[in-house]
């Protein structure tokens, strides 16, 4: 049983999710602690990405989706009518599987989120740009070409740029949906180092199809299978002495 040493940041309680008539998530209940890395693993189509995207309500963009149960962040149900989804998303950063830099300069990519609603002075923007790029270990590589197109960066650099972009708006939570699946091993390594550093400042929830990655970077791991949460515990426990047979089968590679 996981000992809660940090307060709960995100909590799901009896959470169900439907794509039209098809149900994708069944009665998920879990607590994600603050300033830790929580990983979700499981075979393709098990619902882990769907769950992740439900946290910042990105699934709202798809027609015909329906939600049951509760998903709370800091005690507030994110599906509550009072909640403004735009503001919610400002407080939660997201990094996608394929890096999606805007076709703008590196500088503009990072400052995009900041200039949405307030006038920020150039000096302040410069500060944030440097901070964010340092946080994603990209600063040294791009500091001389901030105004070049973001698309001129390599795949790994682009993904780190997306992380910097997400971090720039100072969210409290970082959601990462298979952030390394399109990257080569070296870039993957760099991103994993990043995650280890970032967890001091942010609550990180990571979805990955790479078990070893979950083992390397996360503090807690949840195993999803066919829309249900089979097991959720400290990473060490999951990987060394899982309590459910399905978990063990997955970990040992009995099914992909």
């Amino acid at each position, binding site marked *: 049983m996981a000992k809660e040493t940090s307060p709960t940041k995100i909590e799901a309680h009896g959470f169900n999710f439907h794509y039209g008539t098809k149900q994708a998530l069944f009665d998920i209940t879990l607590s994600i602690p603050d300033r830790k890395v929580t990983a979700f693993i499981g075979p393709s189509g098990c619902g882990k990405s769907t769950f992740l995207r439900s946290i910042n309500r990105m699934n709202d963009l798809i027609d015909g989706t329906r939600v049951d149960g509760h998903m709370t962040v800091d005690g507030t149900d994110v599906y509550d009518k009072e909640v403004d989804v*735009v503001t919610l998303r*400002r407080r939660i950063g997201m990094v996608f599987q394929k890096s999606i830099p805007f076709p703008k300069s590196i500088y503009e990519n990072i400052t995009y989120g900041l200039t949405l609603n307030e006038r920020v002075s150039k000096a302040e923007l410069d500060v944030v740009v440097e901070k964010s790029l340092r946080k994603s270990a990209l600063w040294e590589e791009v500091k001389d070409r901030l105004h070049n197109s973001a698309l001129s960066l390599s795949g790994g650099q682009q993904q780190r740029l997306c992380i910097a972009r997400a971090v720039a708006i100072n969210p409290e939570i970082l959601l990462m949906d298979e952030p390394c699946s399109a990257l080569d091993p070296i870039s993957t390594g760099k991103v994993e180092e990043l995650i280890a550093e970032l967890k001091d400042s942010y609550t990180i929830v990571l979805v990955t199809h790479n078990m070893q990655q979950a083992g390397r970077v996360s503090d807690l791991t949840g195993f999803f299978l066919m829309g249900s949460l089979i097991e959720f515990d400290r990473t060490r426990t999951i990987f060394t002495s899982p309590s459910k047979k399905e978990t063990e089968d997955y970990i040992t590679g009995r099914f992909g």
Partner: protein
Amino acid sequence: MNSIANTIPLPKRLLGFFAVLLAATAAFAVVGVILGMVGTFLMNGGTGVTWTFLSEFPRNNNTEGGIWPALAGTTFLVLLMTILGVPIGTATAIYLTEFARQDSWFARSVRFAVNTLAGVPSIVFGLFGVGFFIQFMGTGIDGFLGTSSFGDGSLLWSSATLAVLTLPVVIVSVEESLKAVPRDLREASLALGATRLQTIVKVVLPNSVTGILTGSILAVGRGAGEVAAILFVGVTYSSSSIPSAVTEKFMHLGYHLFVLSTQSPDVDKTLPLQFATTLVLLGLTFLLNLTAILIRSRLRKR
């Protein structure tokens, strides 16, 4: 995290509201104008579109009567145009998709030519019709045959001009349907031992019939309404009979509307006729375009 109520400042929210409102107004304004146009035509000309109107000859120097010769003329025009243009367009499309090596400079220049053709103003086609078809080919044929009817504006040359004008429409449409034939189908045929030509004739072409059909209909829709290209290549305003030979001049719905509304001696009297003619022309093109779109969407669904 505090209660996640809306934290976007009011001025920004208002800006957002107006940004969307602006776009919506633009869209609905355009739709409104279209509706207004069609509404005006219907209101003023709806009662004029009778069977008599469609089947009678005009009388009294085109101030009364019907538009039968214009309808007939337009029909002959687009028929001949289709006969002249569709085979060439189809052949070109087949060449471009099946035979040409995609990066050969020839294929690319043909493509470029087709695209350019699509953007040329229709009046320039009219000049081409005069300079090339009438003056060059027409007088050439006259000289050869000893006749005098080919070197002048006629149904034949107008159809030819329109065939050239609508060539891009046909080519694009046929190409689209050819490209929709999945690679595997072609490969399966070749794997069974069929030659390239056999594959094309037996497997690819049947699937392209929709494209040929759509392209032809779209071309006809364009040709029925196109006036600028035939202004001086053979269309006329008054004729006592339907053309009996392709070397004769002919009446045309669009041209009829044009002259009726700009040069008629008694505009007030003919106003109802103008509106009725507009409705017929519009209705015709609309029906044609709609048919083509329906066929095309059925093609896409497959």
